[in-house]
């Protein structure tokens, strides 16, 4: 067991876990931030996507030991106040989720895309989102939601 101080959703949080524990288990099982999901454990599905210093990363394969230098970790819970990020609002408008399990990861990935490229083409969206699986097959609506969010973000600038 070792103690770790992490910077998550702008808060300093302390945990004591075995060395090498994945950030995903730390978030979910030790800190109760369960919006980030476990899907595959091998970085193939994207359900565990979080942001580290603004970059989308798969938390299932990240050892907690690598995040003690104040790196800014953002999870779905810290994305916005009351779920009102433009991407979240677009997700509701498009009625994108079905079972909803993969959607936190999809949204975190989409937010990173639009921060990098506020006005992506359909092909750019498909490439950027390709690592996030959705078994319910909501991809058409995810695409719609991203285009909608992109429109709302670029028009409001």
């Amino acid at each position: 067991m070792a103690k770790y101080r992490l910077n998550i959703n702008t808060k300093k949080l302390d945990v004591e876990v075995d060395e090498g524990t994945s950030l995903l288990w730390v978030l979910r099982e030790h800190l109760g931030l369960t919006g980030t999901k476990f899907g595959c454990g091998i970085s193939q599905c994207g359900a565990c996507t979080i942001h580290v210093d603004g970059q989308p990363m798969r938390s299932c394969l990240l050892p907690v030991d690598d995040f003690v230098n104040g790196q800014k970790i953002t999870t779905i819970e810290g994305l916005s106040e009351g779920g009102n990020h433009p991407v979240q609002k677009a997700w509701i408008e498009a009625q994108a989720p079905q079972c909803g399990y993969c959607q936190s990861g999809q949204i975190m990935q989409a937010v990173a895309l639009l921060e990098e490229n506020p006005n992506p083409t359909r092909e750019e969206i498909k490439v950027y989102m390709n690592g996030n699986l959705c078994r319910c097959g909501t991809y058409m609506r995810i695409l719609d939601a991203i285009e909608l969010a992109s429109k709302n973000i670029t028009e409001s600038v």
Partner: protein
Amino acid sequence: MNVDRSISRRKFLKSSSGAMLFIGASGLLPMVVSCTNEKEIQKQLKKHQLTAWVQISEDGHITIYNPAAEMGQGSMTALPVLFAEEMDADWSMVSVEFSPQEASVYGSIAWNPNTKVLITAGSRATKGYYPVMRKAGAQARYALMHTAAMHWAVPRTELATDQGFVIHEKEGEKISYGALVPFLEIPENIPDFTEEQLKDPEKYRLVGKHMPRVEIPSKVDGSAKFAIDIRLPNMVYGVLERGNLHGAKPTLQNKADILVLDGVLKVVPFNYAVGIVASTLEQALAAKKQLKIDWSDAPPTGFNSQEAYIDYGKIASKSAKGKIIFDIGNVQKAWKSASKTYSIDFKNDYVYHAQMEPLNSVVKVAEDLQSAEVWVGSQQGGDGKVGVPQALGIPANKVNVHLQYLGGGFGRRSMTDFVTECALLAKEMAPLPVKLIWTREDDVTYGAYRPLTLQRLKASTDQKGRISGFSHCVVGDGGNLAASGIWNDYYDIPNQFAEWRETSHGIRLKHWRSVGHAPNKFAIECMLDEIAMDHGVDPVALRRKLMVKAPRALATLEKAAEISKWDETSIEGRAKGVAFLQRSGTLSTGICEISVNRQTGKIKVHHFWSALDAGVVVQPDNVKAQMEGGILMGMGSVLKEQITIVDGRIQQSNYHDYQLLRMEDIPESVETVIIESTESPQGVGESGTPLVAGAIANAFFSLTGKRLRHLPFTPDRVLEVLNS
């Protein structure tokens, strides 16, 4: 309702201050209970075995219970909408909660009119609860009108309702449902509303309108609770190693070494697995990796899935029939008088559910081992107690199930193997709660798949080119898992025969979205196109003739042909294909347009159009979402997904070697048209998936003149067919 109970109920009401109103329907006898103390209400509900579908508070807030599992198919909204429609509630004041998991109260009659069961499967939630929810809603409205009548001392028959208000037009009076709560009066009898007494579908205000799904906001901010998200004080973690040979018995070689690992609390033997309980999940998973297990042989030992087709073909050639599914007319006569006959084999490999939330549950068994609390995402099953009473040997009423959202079901969560496992671990650890998590590897290798089958179809045409006979022999394991969808009610073919021939390999099998429909409709729809092409007849024209006696089916065909511009030739390098089917009562036609990369063998679906008749559609946007999702899931299963077995061992283990459809694979458009109807609602969740294989294979046939007859159509198989 007997007299004694009625009196005690009145006493109870008198002693309460009426801040909450519960309205329910227990069988034919609705009851109303009012109280401020929720615990007291629960006690009273239990005492009188009352049912409760709705609560109203004085501020007018209404909570409606949803009795069905919510796995993304929209029951959490559709069923309460039906209730609110008849109750004439103001939807903006409604919130929804899962009902208690008590089948005798909240069960559906979709499976058996005489037995209420809690099962969310077979696309039957809306269909099964359509009468139940509307009647309960109408009874709630009746109780409120009765209360207003007593309050105003006017005849109930002079009253009407309007979106959360009772209105007495004659006197110009109006009172909100919430404001009626303090005056609640229980009617002696609430009518058992008949269909004729319920609202005319033409007057629906909520049903059939765009109703955003109630739980979606919680699914975009991470707050929606799945069972895997449950955390309880003093909770410990369980994992099992089940191997990759179904039914093999483990002998653990290093139990002592495991027990001394950090955090390990217990090693629990199962006859097919070794369980570990540890203080943390990571400790449990680390210990699992250290297990040294010798596995016995098992029924699947020696079985090789890709070689099975040879044996299956031999089984199909035997003269002895299997289980006859239907036998109409006389196919033998049809063969004899035929001008042409066809015999074609179709095949499909095993596929896996791949629901995104791996199986898991949380169970807390009381210290005396006589009761249990369960948190689970389940498609339920029967009594709604998910197998825990049987696992623990305790009565059903000692098991309290807290249903959570399901991170995908697709049939896998209609099994309760994972809940039983967790209950057995929790029994060992009582009274500590145990969270059991399957890794993705566990979920894949110890899956319960859609069975591998071979289908031998025979058909004959007469001198005029009409299909005179059609027979379908499906060979595979699992009975209806292999045979569902084999029938052809909507095609006017005078002589038809269908049978299932059994095989058995000890591989775990289960309903997989649309069950046998996907492989069977693939075979049937491809067979029709083979005949159509052979006779130089357009595939839609052929089906149009076959549907002469099925106008509702025909309407879906015509609509799909219209929106896909079937009659117009596709651009160079593309072609369209069509398929029709009935699943869970819904009629649907799908048409897709594809191209194929002749170097890589990769099929690209550009567009998918569908038209369906599902009776009354409660949530049109959700029906479209179900069709979109079902079609995309179908595309994954048709183009990519494949479980293979070598010497009985499952060869795939995670998403790297069990490939699902990804964003790069999606079509440019998926368009769905709903055909208006006032008939009873039918199931939609499984209508899209089984359209895909036939539509793609038929488009491929049209494009290349070659036949894809073995699912999935992986690039290797496509190249092999193209080069044949």
